[in-house]
């Protein structure tokens, strides 16, 4: 490939990208964020570990600045994490995925919860995490 063809290819790539991202009706994968929303029966949760699984997960961040998130990629399709802070009903974590259209394929599970005095919850009844776009 000569240099003029390199220039053409580089200039064409963004155009192709735009064409793809706008091609929703076309059914191609759309990278984006999913939100993990916590349901808790308690008002004094201080820390939680969870697992989220799905087709692929690029990375994750805490949903707001009052929470701190630690993660480990257990496999290509499973991420485990610990989120610490004043947990409450609502968004706790945002995960970046290659295809938000596959949101329904993602599941999340609460593994452990501790209150703010470090005591481990003996029951996880009433806890749930839902994955939403």
């Amino acid at each position, binding site marked *: 490939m000569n240099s003029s063809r390199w220039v053409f290819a580089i200039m064409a790539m963004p155009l192709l990208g735009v064409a793809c991202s706008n091609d929703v009706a076309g059914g191609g994968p759309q990278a984006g964020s999913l939100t993990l929303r916590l349901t808790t029966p308690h008002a004094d949760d201080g820390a939680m570990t969870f697992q989220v699984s799905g087709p692929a997960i690029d990375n994750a961040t805490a949903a707001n600045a009052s929470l701190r998130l630690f993660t*480990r990629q257990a496999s290509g399709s499973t991420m485990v994490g610990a989120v610490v802070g004043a947990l409450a009903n609502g968004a706790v974590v945002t995960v970046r995925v290659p295809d938000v259209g596959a949101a329904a394929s993602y599941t999340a599970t609460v593994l452990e919860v501790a209150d703010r*005095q470090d005591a*481990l919850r003996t029951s996880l009844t009433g806890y749930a995490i839902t994955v939403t776009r």
Partner: protein
Amino acid sequence: MRISILVLVAVVGATPAMAQTPTAGSWRDAVQRLRTAPKARAARPRPHVAATLESIVDESEPNDSVRTADSIALGDQARGVVNPPGDVDTWFVDLTAGQFFSADVDAQELGSPLDATLVLLAPDGRTVVAFNDDFDGFDSRISYHVPTSGRYYVMLSSFGRIGGSPQARYLLNVGLVTCTAVGTEQEPNDTPGTATPIALGDSVTGEMCAHDANPVGDVDYWAFTGQAGTTIELQVDAAKRGLLVDPFVALFASDGTTRLAFNDDADGADGADPRLQFSIVTTGTYYATVTDAVGHDGNPFPYTLHVRSIVPGPGDPITVRAENLGFPLGLAVGSTGDLFVGDVGGNRVVRISGQGPVTTFAAGIPNPLGLAFDASGQLLVASLDGTVYRVTPQGQVTRFITDAGFPFWIAVAPDGRIWLTNVLDRSLRRYSAAGRLEAQFDGVAIGGSGPGPLAIGPSGEPYVSNFTEIWKLVDGQFQRVFTNGLLIWAFAFDVAGNIYVPAPTVGRIQLFDGTGTVLSDPFAVGPDAPQALAFGRDATGATVARLFATDPLAGRVIEMNPAGVLHPGLPVGYVAPPFTLDAAVTSLLGGGGLSAADVQYLDALGNHNGRFDVGDFQAYLRTLNGLPGSAP
């Protein structure tokens, strides 16, 4: 607040007195022992009574009450018998304001089985203005400055009103006390300017006699020249003559007002007699003072003051690091070497930075007692109000532990757990780093007044003092480490496991090895009444071979001579684990990588349920100031 201070005084002040009677037991036991023990009866000093004997007056029963009291006049000698058991003999005497009245019983001295007590009632016939049980052996004496002219009543009975027999005879001498110069002293010598000159090596005699209206009673000043580098000892002999008296001795600087050292009661051999040692740094005139604990209305008594030089300890001379601190008790050293001191009376914690000025670090903590830094670098302060407060590095105070009863001494173990002694139920308690009670250990069985002062030993186990012994807790059981003949307050370990012990009643610091073998006694004699010891730390937080002590009665923090400190201090408080936060995260989230010891450590930081879980992780983050909203 007044009650609080009284409680504190009771704990801080009374406990040493209790501890000087090594045999355990209640104060009632102690009284009983005192009363039944054979007493060395030295030749009795005759009271200075102004009047000559006017007449001998026999009692006339019934005279059990104010209404039926017998008459007696100054200079008279009353004669009676306490019979039957429970009998009370009452005498009235007319007194004039300004007189220094004396009522003195002779009974035991005459071979009588009577153990007398005396009560002096005001002219209203009800108000007790003076009381005495024992003065000269079991024989009572009252000395009283008469504030108001009128008819006063002297009531004489047997101790507890349980004794009495036809043989329980007594003589009651009533008159006026006169105070004249006795022995070597040259009255008036109540000020530095009128001090009686003496020299090192002298043994001089004087008398405590409250000749004027000074509320503290008689104060005898003695002046001597002290040479720099000399360590001196002041010792008073009075109680050992068989008198139930309690003199104090103090040492004042050349200005006559700065108190350098003080002692009430020395060790057991001296009983209530005081003794102090002090290392003189500056050549000059010094003043020894002798006073009486009872003060204005104390009975006169003679004493001997010995002023001698002694061999100092390796920790002498001391250096004053900060003064005018109120009543500094608890001491902790921060991670950059600053000293933090609780000022009990000032309801504050002060910070002493390097050689810089003293600043108030935290205010509003009622009567701070023991201090320690927790795993997150915040200062824990046990308070007389029953709370352990936590103070951020910025000085913000919050209530932290509120279920500790009466926490007095506090320490933090290398695993971040908090240990404290609850003097209310005499327990040693363990809390998680988060302040949750994990366990408590009944300390009544260790005897004495323990568990009291507390330190973490080389193996991470808590050591406590019962005030004359040091014990350690091993697998939940107390084990005696060693017994000391002196009161033991807040001791400290060096890295070799040696124990530095403050002995406030004798004003010195001792050094023992880990088994209680004396390595150096005295280690230092310069302190007045040292209460809490702590090793210094450098700017990196490493402990160093510098030893500090609070000296509450002198209101100061002192440092021992570092040339005499053998080893650096044992690291105190939380010790950061050898793994990273990332490693902890990986382990928590199923990736393994931590050792069993690390996992055990993390579990101990948190909920101690036998495994490492998210609660423990939260606790660990807290120690790193890593929780959301924490200061980095």
